[in-house]
Structures are given as structure tokens and as C-alpha cells.
């Protein structure tokens, strides 16, 4: 090869290969910032799926790195499902979005999966979720599962309220944010608090003879003059009402 000038023949790798590969093989997680009703949030993902949602800030980023034990780089989500993130944040449900469940106990996965089915603008109690998981009485454990929900907003733990009907706590920025979110979905948290304070847990309609959980879409159809208030399923049953098949209050 004497005299042959091979200038330009060898093009070294562009910068950033190490980071790209680390992200690609899952040695680091990626995150991207999105708008939400509670302000900017960071959505963390890897090739397994979405792994975390947190309010966007530098401190939170550091905390996430410690909590997940993985470094993080700002990245574009996978093309195959990345566009679903925005929609999931708006609708408050994961839809077909893959979730990275690693490190989450089976019970918590079940509780969060049940939570993901609660419709937009409606609320259910910790006890209700526990019942659907098949662990009636595990309301407290469900509460912890909600507090430890790694993917708030997308898995709508803001729709899970205390078993006495009060709105209760919220991990993504405190209870005020839970109110903000419920309000943004048209759920009227003031009314829910009011009912809870009066001990009213169920609402029936005297035209249908059916009783529902507050916020059930059938409950909301009932006009004020036909609404009947109950404190317990027993009270509703004694009055001749049957439980709604949609919100399944018992």
C-alpha cells in the first residue's frame, strides 16, 4: 500500500456511542420530560417499558438514580410505543404501554393493575382495590402500594381514596395535587369530602333501585331529587336497593 494515502478511509465512531449503547442494553435508563396537569414530569423508561414518573427537577433526578440504582440519560422513548406515553398521561391509564415491573412485588403489581382499570373521573377506595386483588381486608397494604406507585398519573393512584371516602394522601407532590388531578377529571373532590364527612358512602337512585359508589357514571346520571344516600351496603339492601354492576360497590 506504499504511497496510497488512506486519509479519510478510517472514520472513527462519533461521540456518544458509549451512552447510546448503555441505554440500548439497559445499563442505564432513559427519561423524557412531559407536560401534565400537575406540571412537568419526567417519565423514565428502558427497553422493558415505563419504569417511573416523577415531578421534573434536578433533585428528583438524583433521587431517582439512587432509588432505581441506575444512571439515567435524557433520551427519546422507543419508537414502538413512545408515542403512547403522552396519551397515557392525558387519559390516566397505561393502555398498551409496556411497564417495567422489575423490583415490584406481585401483590403491588396486582394492586396497581387493578388501579389502572379505574375509569377517568371516578374514584374507588383502598378496600375496593384490595377486594379486586382478592385480598379483602388488605386495604392498608393497598395504601402502601399506592404510596409506592412508581408510575403515578399513568397508573392513576390519584383515583384511589381512603376507605372512609376521604380523599387521602398522594405521593406525587402531596394531597393538593390529588385534588388538582381529580378536579381536572371532573370528579369534584369537595363533594366527595363532604359526603365522606357525613358518613355517606353510597348513592342510590329511587327510579332504578340501584346503589353506586360516588362518581360512578350511573350515579352521576341520577338527578338530585331521585338521589338516596346510604352509609352501608346493608342499609341500601334493607331499603331494597341492589348494587350497581358497573362500579361494583360491594
Amino acid at each position: 500500500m506504499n504511497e496510497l494515502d488512506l486519509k479519510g478511509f478510517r472514520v472513527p465512531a462519533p461521540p456518544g456511542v458509549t451512552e447510546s449503547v448503555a441505554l440500548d442494553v439497559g445499563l442505564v435508563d432513559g427519561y423524557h420530560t412531559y407536560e401534565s396537569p400537575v406540571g412537568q414530569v419526567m417519565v423514565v423508561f428502558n427497553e422493558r417499558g415505563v419504569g417511573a414518573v416523577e415531578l421534573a427537577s434536578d433533585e428528583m433526578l438524583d433521587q431517582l438514580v439512587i432509588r432505581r440504582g441506575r444512571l439515567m440519560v435524557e433520551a427519546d422513548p422507543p419508537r414502538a410505543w413512545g408515542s403512547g406515553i403522552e396519551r397515557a398521561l392525558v387519559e390516566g391509564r397505561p393502555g398498551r404501554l409496556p411497564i417495567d415491573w422489575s423490583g415490584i412485588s406481585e401483590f403491588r403489581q396486582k394492586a396497581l393493575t387493578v388501579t389502572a382499570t379505574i375509569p377517568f373521573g371516578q374514584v374507588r377506595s383502598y378496600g375496593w382495590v384490595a377486594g379486586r386483588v382478592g385480598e379483602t381486608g388488605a386495604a392498608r397494604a393497598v395504601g402502601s402500594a399506592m404510596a409506592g406507585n412508581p408510575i403515578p398519573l399513568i397508573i392513576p393512584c390519584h383515583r384511589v381514596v381512603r376507605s372512609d371516602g376521604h380523599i387521602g394522601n398522594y405521593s406525587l407532590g402531596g394531597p393538593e395535587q390529588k385534588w388538582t388531578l381529580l378536579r381536572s377529571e371532573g370528579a369534584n373532590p369537595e363533594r366527595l369530602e363532604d359526603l365522606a364527612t357525613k358518613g355517606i358512602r353510597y348513592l342510590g337512585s329511587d327510579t332504578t333501585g340501584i346503589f353506586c359508589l360516588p362518581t360512578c357514571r350511573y350515579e352521576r346520571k341520577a338527578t338530585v331529587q331521585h338521589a338516596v344516600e346510604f352509609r352501608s351496603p346493608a342499609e341500601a339492601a334493607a331499603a331494597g336497593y341492589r348494587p350497581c354492576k358497573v362500579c361494583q360497590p360491594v
Partner: protein
Amino acid sequence: MAGFSPGMEGLTDRLANDLEAAFPELVAACQDELHAGLRRLASSPTDAADLVQETFYRAYRALAGYPTEQIVSLRLRPWMWTIALNLGRNHLRSRSRRPTLPLDHDQPSWDPEPADSQAWDRRLRFLSPPGRKAVVLRHAAGLDFADIAELLGRPEATVRSDVSRALQKLRTIIEEEK
């Protein structure tokens, strides 16, 4: 050996010991030669970058599934190139299920390719496929003849003459450009 890559002494042991910790070392050690070779074989900067990344992805997946003894006994450079050449042959599969670093924002733009780079794409088109592969693996990737012979499944003597004939031809092509 005429390798361009920084040393990889003991890297197989480190990969076998702690894959997550040692893998970035493998990336650092091999990325330039992989890119240099794949850039010339793929004739496209974007495809080359994707192929480099895909090669490392496949390598990681494979290493994660290998028993320790197998990792320790690997000859890393030719092994990486076996993966790279296979991918090059099948070209790009979809990488759509995995996250990607954004290329259009927050990424410092790197120097454009050397001025002569595209001229080499054109020149290499005049070579026979075996000659092209051999000369790229030798002079862009910096592999030795024995490894190239094994990778291409051809006798070493044939590879040597392929490379020298390819260089001769390139020299003629460059002469004609003047």
C-alpha cells in the same frame, strides 16, 4: 498485530466477572474500529452508526447468556467482528423496541466526516465484494490477516492477495481521478 484499538488485556476476565461494570470498557475499546469498518462496508454514516450500536447490543445479550468459561475463552476482537459482519449481511433489523438517544437535540454535533470519506464510498464500489471486505477489515478495522481469513472463511494467502489487489486497484482509481 496491526490493531488500532486500545488494549483489551484481561477484558474477557473482567467481562466474565462483572459484565455490567466491564461492558463500557469493551465499547470504548472496539467502537472506533467497528465504526471505521462498518462505515466503509455500509456506505452510509447513519447505517454505520446503527450497525455499531446493534453490534454492541447483540454482544451484550450474548455475553449475558454465556457461562463464565465461554466468556473467558473468547477472542473478543474477531468475535465482535463476527457479530458485526453478520449484521452487515442482514443489514438493519428494527431497533424500534428500544429507547434511543436523541440525535437532533442536546447532542453536541460532531465534526462532519473527513472530506475524503464519501470519495472512498465511490472508489470501493469498483472493487469485488471479497476484495472490498478484505481491504476494509485490514485497513479500516485494522484486523490481522489470520483473523480476516477466519472471519471471511477464506485462506489467508487468498486474503493477502485480495487486499493487495484491492489496494492496487484503488491506487489506479485515484490516479484516474487526477
